[in-house]
């Protein structure tokens, strides 16, 4: 138990760099604290808004108790999705495998610590996501004295099953592709297919909601036979049934113990198997093609990018979405696409929707915010070779533009015909794509230079948990949604052509400022990083 605690504590300190943070000046700690708190408050506000809207809708149909159940289901889906991409790295492919397995620590303690790490981080996310719905439900209805106890137990146990399920699927994917030379590609494709399936499924959410409103009994029956733990949760909050919470506890603890028992028996051999490499060992030098420095750096960065499925998945999702949209535009009629994009809602035109979509896709495709951290222990190579920092940074930007722009620009050309855009509108969208790509990649690089994470134990820590990625992804999206919100509120008084021209001018200005910063502060900062 003591060892388990030590492992958990060590991982926590390492992930969040607590020791390093505590050694910083008080003013800096305060600044970081303030930034993080502001971000949390903003996100909490957004979740509260949606929870309130949902509660209003359900209240109309006298279905308020379903508020908690809907949020539980959303939390479970989120937990499952997030874990799927961190399970392999978090459970099996960590850099400290050799060190930990050489120590007198039982393998089940190592496994338990890693599994708990996953569950705890999911728990924090679930708690954060559930909190507004819990409070709103309490305010809007009369709850029994056991309400918060039941909520507490449910939330604590909520991430267990989805985390374990995601670990299992993550393992199966890794195992199926372990012996292939193209395993990264398999992993990337399988991951995208999987997440798109979930998204397609969530597209049926309005239908499900209608079913809930129309036939509660049927929904409960489906839950009972298809998703029993959720059925139990429903019983807990619809009827305050204590037996259901007891069964829920037993099921979760049982599944956790069973998973631990089975996985522990093969844990070490699974780690070894996943670490196996296929080698040919029959190389002969034939012809080596020389190339330019720019090309050598770009090729190196490109290979590094595609060698990391989590990096590709985290930054390539927007591109996949737009690609699917283009393919769909060949098969689905125009009205249906308008309906899907809610073009007819309010005063939105296809041009407006596409402008928002282009910005969103580009903002989602920020490879630069992890590009310095992803060098990790290899950073000495770049620093010791006769390379100007500017060339290295440019290569990182080029990779971002290469990932973000080609698919998007081609898609826009195709979508011009689907949405019957004018040539000028197409041109504006393309300029928007290029400008926002320059802006976001430079922003990502600057943030990563400010907050590099060079000692990450795996790519998941860099791509999903590092400060630079969190800031570089969330901040632009927050600004974007705020701008869209402001336009939505005052749109009728501002001409969209004027609005988009202002946006383009602002993006261009920010890009120029970022460019100057990168070539001055950025280069200085690059030299400081070790």
């Amino acid at each position: 138990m003591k060892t388990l605690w030590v492992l958990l504590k060590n991982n926590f300190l390492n992930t969040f760099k607590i020791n390093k943070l505590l050694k910083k000046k008080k003013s800096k700690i305060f600044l970081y604290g303030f930034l993080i708190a502001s971000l949390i408050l903003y996100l909490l506000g957004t979740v509260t808004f949606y929870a309130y809207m949902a509660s209003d809708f359900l209240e109309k149909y006298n279905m308020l108790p379903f508020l908690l159940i809907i949020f539980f289901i959303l939390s479970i889906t989120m937990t499952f999705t997030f874990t799927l991409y961190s399970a392999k790295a978090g459970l099996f492919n960590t850099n400290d495998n050799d060190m930990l397995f050489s120590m007198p620590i039982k393998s089940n303690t190592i496994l338990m610590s890693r599994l708990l790490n996953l569950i705890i981080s999911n728990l924090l996310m679930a708690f954060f996501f559930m909190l507004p719905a819990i409070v709103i439900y309490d305010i809007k209805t009369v709850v029994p004295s056991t309400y918060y106890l039941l909520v507490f137990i449910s939330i604590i146990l909520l991430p267990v099953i989805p985390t374990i399920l995601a670990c299992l699927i993550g393992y199966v994917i890794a195992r199926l592709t372990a012996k292939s030379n193209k395993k990264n590609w398999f992993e990337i494709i399988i991951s995208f297919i999987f997440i798109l399936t979930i998204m397609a499924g969530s597209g049926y959410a309005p239908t499900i909601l209608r079913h809930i409103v129309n036939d509660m009994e049927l929904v409960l029956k489906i839950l009972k036979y298809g998703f029993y733990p959720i059925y139990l949760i429903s019983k807990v909050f619809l009827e305050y049934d204590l037996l259901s919470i007891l069964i829920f506890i037993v099921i979760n603890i049982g599944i956790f113990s069973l998973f631990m028992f089975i996985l522990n028996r093969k844990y070490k051999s699974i780690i070894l198997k996943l670490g196996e490499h296929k080698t040919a060992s029959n190389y002969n030098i034939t012809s080596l093609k020389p190339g330019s420095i720019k090309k050598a750096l770009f090729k190196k960065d490109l290979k590094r990018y595609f060698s990391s499925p989590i990096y590709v998945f985290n930054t390539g999702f927007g591109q996949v979405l737009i690609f699917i949209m283009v393919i769909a535009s060949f098969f689905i009629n125009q009205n249906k696409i308008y309906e899907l994009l809610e073009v007819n809602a309010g005063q939105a035109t296809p041009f407006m929707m596409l402008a928002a979509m282009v910005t969103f896709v580009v903002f989602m495709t920020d490879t630069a915010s992890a590009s310095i951290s992803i060098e990790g222990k290899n950073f000495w190579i770049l620093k010791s070779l006769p390379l100007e920092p500017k060339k290295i940074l440019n290569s990182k930007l080029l990779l971002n533009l290469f990932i973000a722009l080609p698919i998007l620009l081609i898609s826009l050309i195709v979508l011009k015909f689907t949405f019957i855009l004018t040539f000028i509108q197409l041109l504006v969208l393309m300029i928007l794509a290029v400008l926002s790509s320059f802006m976001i990649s430079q922003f990502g690089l600057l943030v990563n230079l400010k907050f590099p994470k060079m000692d990450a134990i795996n790519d998941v820590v860099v791509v999903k948990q590092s400060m630079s990625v969190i800031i570089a992804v969330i901040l632009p999206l927050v600004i974007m949604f705020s701008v869209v919100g402001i336009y939505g509120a005052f749109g009728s008084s501002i001409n969209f052509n004027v609005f988009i021209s202002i946006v383009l001018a602002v993006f261009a200005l920010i890009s120029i400022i970022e460019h100057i910063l990168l070539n001055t502060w950025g280069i200085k900062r690059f030299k400081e990083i070790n």
Partner: protein
Amino acid sequence: MLKIKHFSKVYGNNTKKAVDDLNLHIKKGEIFGFIGHNGAGKTTTIKSIVGINEITEGEILIDGISVKDNPLECKKKIAYIPDNPDVYMSLTGIGYLNFVADIFGISKEEREELINKYATTFELLPNLGDLISSYSHGMKQKLVVISALIHKPKLLILDEPFVGLDPKASFALKKIMKNLCKEGCSIFFSSHVLEVVEKLCDRVGIIKDGKLVACGELSKIKGDKDLESIFLGINE
């Protein structure tokens, strides 16, 4: 070839100097051994010479060029072999060597000849087509050594170069080091293996707590004792 003048290094906001007022001069064609206990300042010095660390005070000159003022020109003359061979796992061995060759602008013929020569010497040629992630520690170390040699450096900087190498590869590296010196290349290397330092070096420097406490020809420093007792005496 390498001149270190009053070099000091301070990390971050620390008050203590990791290296304090270091002065050294390595001549052309010389092998210089740099020894010291763990944390004495060897790697800090090496990382500053090769341009990884920034220089807090003083100056480091390579072939008369300042590392601080003209790092790129200096790096073109240097090859660096770190104590831990962390290289790009996503590349193949040949991919990495080609990458380094591209950065140094090595011609097609020359890179083919030198890679072939050194990869054969270190028995790594058959593995060059495999991903580096499949390499053992020693294989990675060999790869880094080959990448350092293919651009014919004027100054070779090695940080614990023999760690992880098998006896045959160690022997080959020592032989290559001697041959390079005969061709006019200077070598600056740190090691804990004092026997190797004794066998290879013309001069040695001993660093303790960031300060150079002894420096000179091996025979003069040693006298009639062995290097180990001198080293232990200094560090007591």
